[in-house]
């Protein structure tokens, strides 16, 4: 019997997700033994045309990480969707946009201006911007088109499962892969479509060892502004911790390292919009009644939008800004 085929792809992301796959340590050998890895640009040399040549639905499992930033990302998403039986949005970028999607708060023009003109290390007196098509004497040179907005994978193609995290915890990755192997080997039924794999149903607080009190916040602090008590809930201390509005599964890694949860595991099961839910929760525990005082406290939250939507901007209720 032929081995099940495995594909991994890296779209608009930092690459951490690919590293997270390798982080499963010796289990990677099981993966290599069980699967026939047909596409993994980061690790092995395949060409897009190899994938294009495959028959539809010939890839058993595709772990797709990275968001959809440009035409290349989108093209590959569509291609891999067509060729794969099971397409998994792997990691926060593919799941809900992650850090790249924060670019949705601005415009393509503004990003280009920053990157190609304004950054101090840039010297571009002719104001040359990347062009999708450049004519040279050998013919046309094409580079991917930079999209206006960043999208999550499921905003471009149909996604079967999600594995959240930035990057997904390698223990969770290992567990998922083990489960997949188990399913394939023993012919077990697949979980329902849309299931979030490798994560819990509660929030980060469930895994957080800190002691929590009733919350009333008079001032919010950034990390460098306060000496953090390692045993006490960070939110109680006035640090914006996304833990309460973030799905469990990571084992509360960040908070155990005395750093607030940033929310990479995405919204908990019943929450549609992680950012707005966090906003509602945070503003509820502000300890002030007078508008001026409220504003004063709110102003101690640095960049609320970016903080609350750090990972879930592509999935925010208001998907695209700039109107």
């Amino acid at each position: 019997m032929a081995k099940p085929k495995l594909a991994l792809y890296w779209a608009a992301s930092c690459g951490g997700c690919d590293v997270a796959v390798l982080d499963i340590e010796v289990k990677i050998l099981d993966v290599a033994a069980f699967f026939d890895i047909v596409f993994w640009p980061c690790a092995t040399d395949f060409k897009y045309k190899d994938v294009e040549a495959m028959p539809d639905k010939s890839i058993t499992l595709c772990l797709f990480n990275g968001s959809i930033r440009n035409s290349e990302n989108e093209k590959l998403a569509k291609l891999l969707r067509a060729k794969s039986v099971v397409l998994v949005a792997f990691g926060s970028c593919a799941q809900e946009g992650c850090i790249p999607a924060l670019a949705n708060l601005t415009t393509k023009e503004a990003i280009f201006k920053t990157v190609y003109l304004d950054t101090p290390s840039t010297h571009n007196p002719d104001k040359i911007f990347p062009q999708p098509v450049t004519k040279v004497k050998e013919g046309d040179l094409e580079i991917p088109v930079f999209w206006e907005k960043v999208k999550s994978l499921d905003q471009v193609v149909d996604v079967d499962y999600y594995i959240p995290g930035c990057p997904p915890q390698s223990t969770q990755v290992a567990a998922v892969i083990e489960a997949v192997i188990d399913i394939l080997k023993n012919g077990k039924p697949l979980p329902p479509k849309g299931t979030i794999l490798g994560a819990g149903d509660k929030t980060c607080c469930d895994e957080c060892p800190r002691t929590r009190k009733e919350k009333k916040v008079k001032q919010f602090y950034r990390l460098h502004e306060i000496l953090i008590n390692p045993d006490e809930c960070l939110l109680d201390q006035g640090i914006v911790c996304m833990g309460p509005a973030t799905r469990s599964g990571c084992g509360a890694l960040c908070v155990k390292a005395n750093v607030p949860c940033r929310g990479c595991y995405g919204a908990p099961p019943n929450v549609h919009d992680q950012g707005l839910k966090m906003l509602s929760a945070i503003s509820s525990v502000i300890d002030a009644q007078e508008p001026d005082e409220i504003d004063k406290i709110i102003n101690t939250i640095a960049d609320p939008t970016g903080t609350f939507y750090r990972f879930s901007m592509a999935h925010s209720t208001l998907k695209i800004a700039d109107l």
Partner: protein
Amino acid sequence: MAFEPRIVAFFCNWCTYTGADLAGVSRLKSPANIRIIRTMCSGRVDPSFIMKAFELGADGVLIGGCHPGDCHYAEGNYKALRRVHLLKKMMRSFGIDEKRLRLEWISASEGDVYQHVATEFTQTIRSLGPLNWKQHVDQKSSSEQAVVV
């Protein structure tokens, strides 16, 4: 056809909803643009509802609660106040004019205040023009789609 704003209002059961009712009973004419959702308390209004309203095509959102100190539930209205303050800040970064969201204290007896606020807010939204969030999103997505193919 002239632009008629679509305004979603979240009114608390005890004060503003009753106040709006009073405006009706008192035959005070107020704009039909306001589409009211009753909640028990303005503190029930989740920012998600507000943003969902914008997403679904509302041009403005009005929240009505009891006057400070008068809340039927002691201080639910203060929670609404704090959420609205933070949400407005977020709306700015999303590029939505914060004037499209308004929080007003209208008591059960202030039918005239309701009339005034409703009229004024409708006028504000009318002058701001349509938000058309959904169409914008769809349009942008489809225009990009065309490039890919």
